[in-house]
């Protein structure tokens, strides 16, 4: 995807300079996938088109804050997801979230809304970014290596454990391997991540999954 990123960065640069042609090109390049993303959820073409339109406007409004190191496609999808959840909430399809567990207060908050706690502000700065960057780099390298070597079982195993949260037993059954193998893959994967965080002097306590008691040979 690296060549795509270079093309995207040039495109964004031209858009920042106010180039109409570049903006048309970005729309042509991304509208189809954004539309498919919105329509899969709404099942209505007209509303989905509105969401995509709002997403493009949202992108232009947020352009001064867009960090070119981030994938443009992922950035557009995140804006689209935000517009979509907002739309679903207004339509009453997405339940409103009561404030904390105090249903008795009758208070309501928006998911990912602006009213964040002080602790979030305290941890939302450079440290958090460093932790995330370390994880992204480390996982990215690991996944690329698995793909290069054709270690598909290992990749699928870790993806089911980490992304989907499946239990070892389910993963073993899905992939046709033993629970022992799943436990070993998990142990090696978590040990590697912990060591990377430690090397970079970062706090592993902020990743709850790294504290799962899953010694080699044991089952989660």
């Amino acid at each position, binding site marked *: *995807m690296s060549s795509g990123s270079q093309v995207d960065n040039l495109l964004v640069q031209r858009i920042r300079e106010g180039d109409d042609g570049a903006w048309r090109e970005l729309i042509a390049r991304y509208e189809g996938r954004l539309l498919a993303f919105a329509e899969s959820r709404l099942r209505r073409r007209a509303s989905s088109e509105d969401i995509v339109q709002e997403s493009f406007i949202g992108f232009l409004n947020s352009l001064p804050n867009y960090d070119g190191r981030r994938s443009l496609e992922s950035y557009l999808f995140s804006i689209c997801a935000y517009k979509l959840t907002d739309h679903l909430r207004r339509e009453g399809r*997405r339940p409103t979230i009561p404030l904390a567990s105090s249903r008795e207060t009758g208070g309501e908050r928006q998911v990912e809304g602006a009213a964040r706690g002080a602790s979030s502000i305290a941890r939302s700065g450079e440290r958090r970014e460093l932790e995330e960057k370390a994880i992204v780099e480390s996982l990215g390298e690991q996944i690329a290596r698995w793909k290069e070597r054709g270690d598909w079982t290992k990749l699928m195993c870790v993806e089911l454990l980490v992304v989907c949260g499946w239990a070892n037993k389910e993963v073993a059954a899905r992939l046709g391997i033993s629970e022992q193998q799943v436990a070993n893959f998990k142990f090696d994967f978590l040990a590697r991540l912990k060591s990377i965080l430690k090397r970079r002097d970062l706090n592993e306590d902020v990743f709850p999954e790294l504290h799962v008691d899953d010694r080699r040979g044991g089952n989660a």
Partner: protein
Amino acid sequence: MSRPILDHQLEGYLDESLSADELTAIEGRLRADPALMDRLLAIIRRRDAGIHTLSEIWRRHRLSCPGREQLGSYLLGAMDDSDQAYVRFHIETVGCRYCMANLEDLREAARREEASRTVERRRRYFESSAGYLRRRPD
């Protein structure tokens, strides 16, 4: 009995990153189950406190998503069997909504291209043969 909903799914629900069917199912369960709503709130509070999860980071940065070119090859069935199997797993088992959207977009583009090729082919057939049309004598 329906399968219990995992915290990983609730995180995906907050980010709209699960398959549409999964999201709809979770919405229904959230309405009916206050305990599930409490778990969702706990995740929001945890996020507010700045605690990460690997799952969120992996999904947000789309660390294992195949590139668009690879998705195109997948559609054409032009990948190695093992690569093809991984992409199918990522889409069908993991349910990556971003890759599903890309795939649908590529399918739609292929349909449009085929439709425009069909129009062009028919035009060419017509133009190359219309001169042979014989009119019936009045």
